[in-house]
């Protein structure tokens, strides 16, 4: 029996009424790689924050190398005990160079010559993990692209000064890495594990977890529901353990809709982000998907259409008004200080006027109406928008767009971080609205969602490289179109 590196016992944590962790037991042995998988919101990240000392659990105990540390556990003590974490949202300071960022996690890097030591430390580790990375360690983190930042942060987590290196938590470490660097990382991780370092790998890429972990723990609703050696899992049994909602939306069902789409063209546009590209058209009442690798010009396309709707006569032809549903709720979507009702009605204020003033009763009526129609779970639409969960905030944004008079609804990967049941409700609503004659342009990073679209355009490097019809919207075809040439 190998020695225990970390042991978590009956950890609970609630945020307000939401129970994020409901009594989690988890053990990590020395020199072991544990895979942690589960749905969005299963509590993986919360659990890792507890382990990294950045969140205090409500109850439960935590022991590191046999020593109970739960009494005064903090980020500093976690680090002193050799626990490092690469968080999903990166934690580099954008205004500091990588060398300076290395200093932040290492208290020992101080006094004369600290910079030279820090430079050597981070550069050596980057070279070790990601040979030929081409990253300048004296560049400010904010000037690097997201993949380089992720590489730098991973390298930083594995650097050692005076504090030991016992456990490294990697929360979706490959989300911004390309295939080559992701492979380098996973290989390096196995090397470290062989040396006796324990790692926890959280990933949505089941293949990575199955291939590179010794043991896999599956989380669901704030609990560990399955925990076995990795070789005892298969892809299917893992998915089954996570209790993934069986989404077998048949493509055929959608195809039967195709006949109903009008031939009237709602949007005709050519991406401005590339020289050689195909064009996009959207018919009235059609749901058109934008797919491809994340960040390859899809959002620019949506913005271009949105701007085209405001400036008639441009190269981008848009028949009617457009509404935009942001995927990044916090920065582009909600008004933090406003109520749910105000957030919902803000796009329709023109129609809610009485003379020059806003008619409060009509505003409230519209808010009430949408609360029912879209099922926003709140006792009172006058509560602040932040009292809602993420999924319900997103519903309010849908209500804002659908409640306006817009003929074309632009969606910028709006289902990020939304739970499955909300998603299903919204999919239904989109279909109904489309049947009523509204057009949807839907950028999504989840290939599954394309099955709700009538057609899809695949983007690569800012250009439209393929158009897929209803019976071609399969994972294979989409991936093939996204990667042709580049992979």
């Amino acid at each position, binding site marked *: 029996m190998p020695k225990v590196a970390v042991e978590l016992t009956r950890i609970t944590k609630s945020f307000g009424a939401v129970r994020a962790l409901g009594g989690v037991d988890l053990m990590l042995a020395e020199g072991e790689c544990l895979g942690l998988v589960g749905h969005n919101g299963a509590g993986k990240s919360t659990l890792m924050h507890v382990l990294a000392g950045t969140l205090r659990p409500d109850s439960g105990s935590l022991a590191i190398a046999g020593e109970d540390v739960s009494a005064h556990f903090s980020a500093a003590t976690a680090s002193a005990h050799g626990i490092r974490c690469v968080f999903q949202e990166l934690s580099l300071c954008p205004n500091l160079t990588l060398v300076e960022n290395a200093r932040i996690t290492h208290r020992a890097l101080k006094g004369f010559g600290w910079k030279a030591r820090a430079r050597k430390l981070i550069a050596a580790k980057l070279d070790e993990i990601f040979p030929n990375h081409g990253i300048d360690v004296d560049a400010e983190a904010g000037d690097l692209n997201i993949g380089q930042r992720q590489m730098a942060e991973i390298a930083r987590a594995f650097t050692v000064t005076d504090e030991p290196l016992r456990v490294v938590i990697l929360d979706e470490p490959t989300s911004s890495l390309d295939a080559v660097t992701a492979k380098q990382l996973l290989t390096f991780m196995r090397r470290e594990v062989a040396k006796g370092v324990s790692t926890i790998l959280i990933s949505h890429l089941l293949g990575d977890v199955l291939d590179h972990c010794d043991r896999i723990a599956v989380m669901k609703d704030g609990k560990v529901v399955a925990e076995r050696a990795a070789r005892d899992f298969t892809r299917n049994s893992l998915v089954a353990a996570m209790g993934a909602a069986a989404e077998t939306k048949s493509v055929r069902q959608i195809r039967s809709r195709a006949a109903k789409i009008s031939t009237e063209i709602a949007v005709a546009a050519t991406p401005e982000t590339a020289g050689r590209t195909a064009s996009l058209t959207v018919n009235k009442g059609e749901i058109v998907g934008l797919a491809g690798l994340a960040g390859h010009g899809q959002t620019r396309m949506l913005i271009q259409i949105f701007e085209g709707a405001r400036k008639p006569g441009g190269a981008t032809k848009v028949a009617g008004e457009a509404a935009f549903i942001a995927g990044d709720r916090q920065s582009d979507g909600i008004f933090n200080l406003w109520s749910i009702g105000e957030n919902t009605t803000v796009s329709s204020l023109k129609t809610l006027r009485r003379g020059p003033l806003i008619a409060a009763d009509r505003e409230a009526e519209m808010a009430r109406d949408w609360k029912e129609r879209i099922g926003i779970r709140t006792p009172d639409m006058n509560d602040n928008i932040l009292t809602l969960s993420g999924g319900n905030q997103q519903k309010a944004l849908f209500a804002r767009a659908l409640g306006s008079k817009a003929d074309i609804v632009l969606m910028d990967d709006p289902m990020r971080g939304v739970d499955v049941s909300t998603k299903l409700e919204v999919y239904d609503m989109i279909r109904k609205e489309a049947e009523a004659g509204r057009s949807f342009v839907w950028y999504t990073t989840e290939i599954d969602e394309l099955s709700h679209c009538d057609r899809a355009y695949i983007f690569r*490097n800012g250009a439209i490289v393929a158009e897929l019809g209803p019976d071609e919207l399969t994972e294979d075809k989409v991936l093939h179109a996204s990667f042709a040439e580049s992979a």
Partner: protein
Amino acid sequence: MTNYGESRNHPFLSYRDCESRMTALALNRKTLRALLPLLSLVIVLVATFYAQPRTMSYFGLNLMLQYAVPIALATIAQMFIITVNDLDLSIGPFVGLVGCIGATYLNDTPLLGIVALALCIAAYAAMAALIHLRNLPSIVVTLGASFVWLGIAVLILPSPGGKAPDWLKAIMSLQVPVVPFPIVAALAIAALVHVGLMTSSYGVIMRGTGGNPRAMARAGWSELRTKMAMYALAGLFGVLSGLSLIGLTTSADAHIADRYTLYAIAGVILGGGEFVGGRVSPFGAVIGALTLALAGSFLIFMRISPDWQIGAQGAILIIVLALRALINTGEARR
């Protein structure tokens, strides 16, 4: 399909590095940005020399720039606060209060004076604690504090007067060969702060707190402590500013430095600092302060009435910021 969100985090499904060409361009812009404060100083200096050639001398520069030292110190104080994403609207009245203490207690009963000044610095640190613990906007707290400073200053020195200690006057009328004292002093201040804030390992922690407070907390650094340290440093430089000011004026007045609040903010921003994100530059801030001090003299030489001066200085600020925005446009979007 049992595709379990694979698409979103597929290693292929991520960015493509296509910005190497942009990096060279961005570096260029960066240098340009860094040089902008210096450029504006040179332009104002040349304009002043053109308007009044006799200022182009040791004595002329000394006279024109003598008030640059207290302004530079107040600007550095403001810069410390801006480094941690706050804004200090009380630095002007605070400098005035220090001036009043300096021209009364410090001269009559030095020990009491020193204790009073130490209390002032402690008050700044306490203000940081209040702002952080109660999660209050710094603008509100410091605006409130500014009236407190002013009130205390009026209580200490109800009408203009008092007498600055002789040693202060001696320091401020120091003559240095070749380069006028204010320039030497300003550069020395900038160099000192540069070493502390930009190159020391603790300066990294301070700036990091402005850049990403959450990351700092995750690394186990106390934001409260950092903020208190930065505010205390701001208090210290505010005290130095007040003392250097009365060393020049030889007497004090509660309202002597009311304009410094805006000078200090303008100086930091002129010098290339940003309101949020921990991006500041000590040399830039000092150069910004010198530019503003010179702009005052230049406007007098242009026979622009003092009533219009604040407006004219505002115009200079807007022009420089517009230039900066121009440099920034086209910088790679991320």
